[in-house]
């Protein structure tokens, strides 16, 4: 079916892009969180 490739590409772009963004922000948050004391984190 011709449509299938397009449909899967759409879902892959949306979910893959979101996953990449989420992974990146979590990784960066962990890395920075380890470097900084908790006084610099107003959300805690």
């Amino acid at each position, binding site marked *: *079916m011709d*449509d*299938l490739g*397009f*449909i899967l*590409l*759409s*879902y892959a*772009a*949306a*979910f893959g*892009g*979101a996953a990449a*963004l*989420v992974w990146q*922000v*979590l990784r*960066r*948050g*962990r890395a*920075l*969180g*380890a*470097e*900084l*004391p*908790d*006084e*610099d*984190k*107003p*959300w*805690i």
Partner: protein
Amino acid sequence: MNRNEGSAPVATTHTPSTASAPAMTSRPRGAGTGTTFTRWLGIVTLASMAAVALFGLVLSPEDVVQGESVRILYVHVGTVWVAYLAFVVTAVSSAAYLWRRTHSLTWDRIAGASAEIGVLFMAVTLLTGSLWGRLSWGTFWVWDARVTTTAFLFITYVGYLAVRGLGGSHEQRARRSAVVALLAVIEIPLVHFSVKLWRSVHQDASVAGRTTDVTLDGLMLFTLLLATVAFTLLYVWYVLHRQRVMTMEDALDDKGLDLALAERRREAATNGVSNGAPSATGEVTN
């Protein structure tokens, strides 16, 4: 990347200096950006995203007119809604930064975080939109006002993110980017209006005329709503986390600056007797 490399030496020199402080030694784990609320939000988001995939790809029926291609629309509508929401939030928090007396950087960080995810979702929107257009109109791109405006919005916010990366003080970044975000509020309607006028002069078959009418049955409507909710939850989750990461990035920047200044003063004190040497070392630390 650049920022990361810049912060690495700061961290190594920073840790021993604060190790003497009791707050640091008692809590060596170093909390990340998560809180109880965002963890729960994350779980709900993950579950609803999985539900979108399940309903969108498997459970929902195919459209009588469009066939399977209607499945693209669930993702398309979800992302376009979040993308436009993101740019509204960016504009509003930019305005809040400029006009609130406190000039709180939190507004600036929310604006930046929101624009980041907005740009991603706008890219996904354009991609899914053109794929869907290819299936149902037979063409990837139409010079329709809505489509063209969306593309311009995308480019404009790519520029906005570039402005955020220009450097300078945090306040400079906040003010510059806030002005750019507000200028986009003038720009985008003008682009939309001019493209609309341009296309109406040419009297091409409008997209609306060619749109294959979608008659949504209950399950399809539910999937569409589910996708909108899921992507919105993801948006909220991302903005919360990213804004916290930005807070830490800024704090680290400030610390790095303080540290460099202290270093300089120390060097100036030790080299105070022999002049000439401080200027050379001063430039290196800078």
